[in-house]
Every structure is written in C-alpha cells, then in structure tokens.
C-alpha cells in the first residue's frame, strides 16, 4: 500500500458516524532492526474532525510561533486525536473504520 491511500480519507466510528479525516500517519521506530534503524511501524492515524490538511508541525507541544499561524492551525485542527492502529477495524474504499471500544488519544508530540 502507498501512504497516500490513507492520507485525507474519512474515518468513521463503529456506528458509521463520521469522526474526521486522516491528517497524518504516526510511525514509531519500535520494530526489529531493519538496516541501521529499527523498523518504522504504523502506530496510528491522526484524525482531524474538520480538515484533512496537514498540521504543518503545530502538533508539536512546543510549537507556538508565529502566534497567529499557530492559532489558525490549532483552530482548523481543533479536536484532532490519535486513533491507534489496533483500534482500526478495517480499511475499505469508504475510508477507515474504528472498531468497537476504540479510544481517542492525545495527538500532540513533544
């Protein structure tokens, strides 16, 4: 699969209600060694309820300048959350579907 197939697609909860769109995909270097680095495994999807566009780095907790841009982007991505891959039931042509009992996680990073 190509990552572009996931970015921007709609995400729904188990009842089919819309949750937002995939704004980014979060990988963690926690797999077995693959060359010099650990394998980068998909940890989850950043789901933004109002836009599928990029957060441009303002998902970093410390990123607060320039202030006007930070304010606009945080407003556009208000309610953004991390949907862990293990909470994804399936991916199909309609988008990504969360499994029953899924949890909304904090999407910010340090």
């Amino acid at each position: 699969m190509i990552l572009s197939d996931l970015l921007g697609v709609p995400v729904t909860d188990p009842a089919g209600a819309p949750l937002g769109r995939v704004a980014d995909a979060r990988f963690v270097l926690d797999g077995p060694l693959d060359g010099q680095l650990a394998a980068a495994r998909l940890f989850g999807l950043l789901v933004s309820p109002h836009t599928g566009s990029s957060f441009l780095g303002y998902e970093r907790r410390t990123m607060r300048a320039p202030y006007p841009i930070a304010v606009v982007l945080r407003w556009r991505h208000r309610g953004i959350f991390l949907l862990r891959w293990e909470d994804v039931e399936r991916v199909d042509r309609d988008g990504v579907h969360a499994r029953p009992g899924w949890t909304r996680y904090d999407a910010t990073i340090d």
Partner: protein
Amino acid sequence: MTDEGERLPRPEYRGRVLDAALHLLDRQVQDVHGEPVQTADDLEIGDVPVGESLEGAERPRILAILNGTALSTRVVGGRPPSSTLERIPWRHVADVGTAIRLTIEADDVDATWRERWVRDHIIRRIPGGRHDPE
C-alpha cells in the same frame, strides 16, 4: 471514549516517533556523503488488506521511500502509477533529521539512473564534459 475538551490520554511510545507528513514527506534524501539524491514523495507501507478485518494483523511498517510523480497527484488527486515510482528500501536509511540520510551512495540508488545515463551517454561525449569546470 473521551469527549472533546477533556484531556485525552497519552499513548506510550516505545521508540522514536515519526509522523509521515511532518517528518518524512517532501524531505530531501541524501546519500552517505550528503549528496542530494531525491525527495521523499511518498512511502510504501506493508500491505493493508482492503475491506477485511485487521483483527490480529501486524502493524504495517514502512518498506520504502518513494520518489516520482506523487506531488502532482497529491495536488490534483488520484494515485500515481506504481511503475512510475522509484523506491529506496527503508533498510538503507541511516537517519531521519532535516534530511533523510542513506547508508549507500547515490550511484547505488535506482532513482538516479536517468541522471547517470545522461551523464555517461551524453555529457561525457561533449568536449570538456569529463572534468569539472576550470
């Protein structure tokens, strides 16, 4: 499930975190000597069975960095044909910073074959084309 406005739980990360669009896409890819090779236009990730339950499936991993015509399709939509994308396997990545650094030389990367072909078959035949400008 937590409602919006409440403080959401933070997941535990057991390794370095890389957000694809933030840390990888559009970054310059450099060879082992720091020479620019290409940009990271897209990523090839492990197979995700479309329409099937992911129960018990392994988390997909990044298999390769892709370079090709992905930028135009990202703007106008659609999907670039896989045959037009050059791939650099993830095992050749040494580090990810402001650029993505490889463990191999540019000449060993398939993505540079056009550049090498033009150099070897055209530029070298031009008088003075075999040495640096003086």
